[in-house]
């Protein structure tokens, strides 16, 4: 599912990927790996089941109870209803943020002046706990959709901006020399060399941005307004229905992994003819 190769992961975790910034795309697992994966699931879920049966804590349900609860919530539409709410600010925030943050990051990579003025801020913002600003959002935008959209953008913007910037700055110097020696105009150089070469890191940034955005929306739903999945988690905890609470949390982790994986698949299908 999220089994990325080392090279692509290094791109993901802010480490500068190799020249050209190209990501190695997820390999299809072989039969043997499927077996390992099965064992891996069995060990973890088995451990969970046993820990739940002991039980480690009265508020720690078994794996089977959690799965039953998850099935129930899937069937009676609870999850669908919650995600319908959660997904709105996420999609809206990600769309707005992707466009603006990628453009800004690209601008930062292309212009020394923009770089000088904004790179230090984004370096700090990326290392900093942006969640600290969430109390302010309530203050500014109340408790509606806008507040949650802003929370998503706040969490995902720094990483998208910085990755786009790094993508631009990581363009292979010899490709730049090549385009100059064949007399490319600056426009041609940007469109035909710099942007294609940066696209790998830009997409990696977007994937990281989505993961951060999900954190943003969950945080907003837990802290600002109890809606969607955040509301489910809070509600089931307050009524001590722990299997349902665990199931809600499990669902958001699965949701995030699937979203990130789908994004990678889409990138490969649409923009990577060479693989």
């Amino acid at each position, binding site marked *: 599912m999220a089994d990325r190769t080392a090279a692509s992961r290094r791109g993901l975790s802010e480490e500068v990927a190799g020249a*050209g910034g*190209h990501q190695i795309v997820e390999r299809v697992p072989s039969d043997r790996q499927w077996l390992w994966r099965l064992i891996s699931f069995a060990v973890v879920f088995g451990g969970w089941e046993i820990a739940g049966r002991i039980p480690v804590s009265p508020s720690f349900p078994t794996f089977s109870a959690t799965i039953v609860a998850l099935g129930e919530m899937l069937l009676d539409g609870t999850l669908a209803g919650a995600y319908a709410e959660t997904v709105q600010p996420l999609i809206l925030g990600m769309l707005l943020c992707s466009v603006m943050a990628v453009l800004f990051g690209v601008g930062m990579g292309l212009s020394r002046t923009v770089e000088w003025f904004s790179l230090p801020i984004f370096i700090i913002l990326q290392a900093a706990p942006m969640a600290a600003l969430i109390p302010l959002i309530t203050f500014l935008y109340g408790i509606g959709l806008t507040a949650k959209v802003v929370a998503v953008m706040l969490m995902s913007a720094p990483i998208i901006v910085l990755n786009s910037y790094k993508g631009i700055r990581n363009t*292979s110097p*010899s*490709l730049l*020399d*090549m*385009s*100059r*020696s*064949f*007399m*490319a*105009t600056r426009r*041609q150089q940007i469109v*035909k*060399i710099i942007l*294609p*070469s940066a*696209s790998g890191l830009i997409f990696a940034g977007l994937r990281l941005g989505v993961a951060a955005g999900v954190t943003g929306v969950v945080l907003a739903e837990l802290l600002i307004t109890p809606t969607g999945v955040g509301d489910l988690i809070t509600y089931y905890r307050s009524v001590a229905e722990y299997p349902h609470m665990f199931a809600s949390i499990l669902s958001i982790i699965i949701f995030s992994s699937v979203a990130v994986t789908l994004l990678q698949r889409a990138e490969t299908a649409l923009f*990577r*003819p*060479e693989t």
Partner: protein
Amino acid sequence: MLNTVLSARNGQASGTPEAAVQVEGIGKRYPGGVEALKDVTLDFPAGELTTLLGPSGCGKTTLLKIIAGLLDPSKGQIRVKGKQVHGPGPDRAFVFQDFALMPWATVLRNVAFGLELRGVAKAEREATARKYITEVGLTGFEQSYPHELSGGMRQRVGVARALAVDADILLMDEPFASIDEQTRRKLQEDLLQLLQIEKKTVIFVTHSIEEAVYVSDQIVLLSRRPGTVSRIIRPNLDHSTDLEAARRDKAYLDCVDEIWQTLKQYLV
């Protein structure tokens, strides 16, 4: 047998008509203060292959990039066919040590790239590209991507791309340095064969003495940094009959040895 010209050519008239490229008093000092080249004056005869050879760090690549217009000299000027040039021009095409192929583009698009930048229509530039892909022996790989090719094949793409823009002057920066020895020999032979058809002026940078002697009409030995012209040697090998025989030629061996004796003094 060897025809050695000493470096003191400053007094000589540099306006000889058959020089495709003239380098006049070129000096290069990098912002950090490193002086890479000092007062280099050289002619590159039209239709010949001239090699820049020297110890590593002697500024051979710097000189080539200055001729290409990729770097600005701190002093001096470059003339191409008698006209002073600033920056890259359609008369010169560059072949890169690391190939500089676009990983996201097919062989066909990579080879046609110079023409694409000039705004040549797609059908026309692809027809030209196909011609040169055939000429470098890559027929059948038009739709392959660079990562699917071996190092030697990648550099053939680089050479085809440089030929496709129909520049009179080819600038080759250690083109075969990152390719294994056996493939390199084959590439050297194929290059010589190609040049018999294409009639280009070639400026070739290498650190391999054997390669320089084998491919060159004229070899320019550069001294250690700051690079200056140390000697100019013409190996006078006969490539026209048998490409293999040249490597067994006594002139070849003598020339390799003579260059080694000269370059040895620059090594620590």
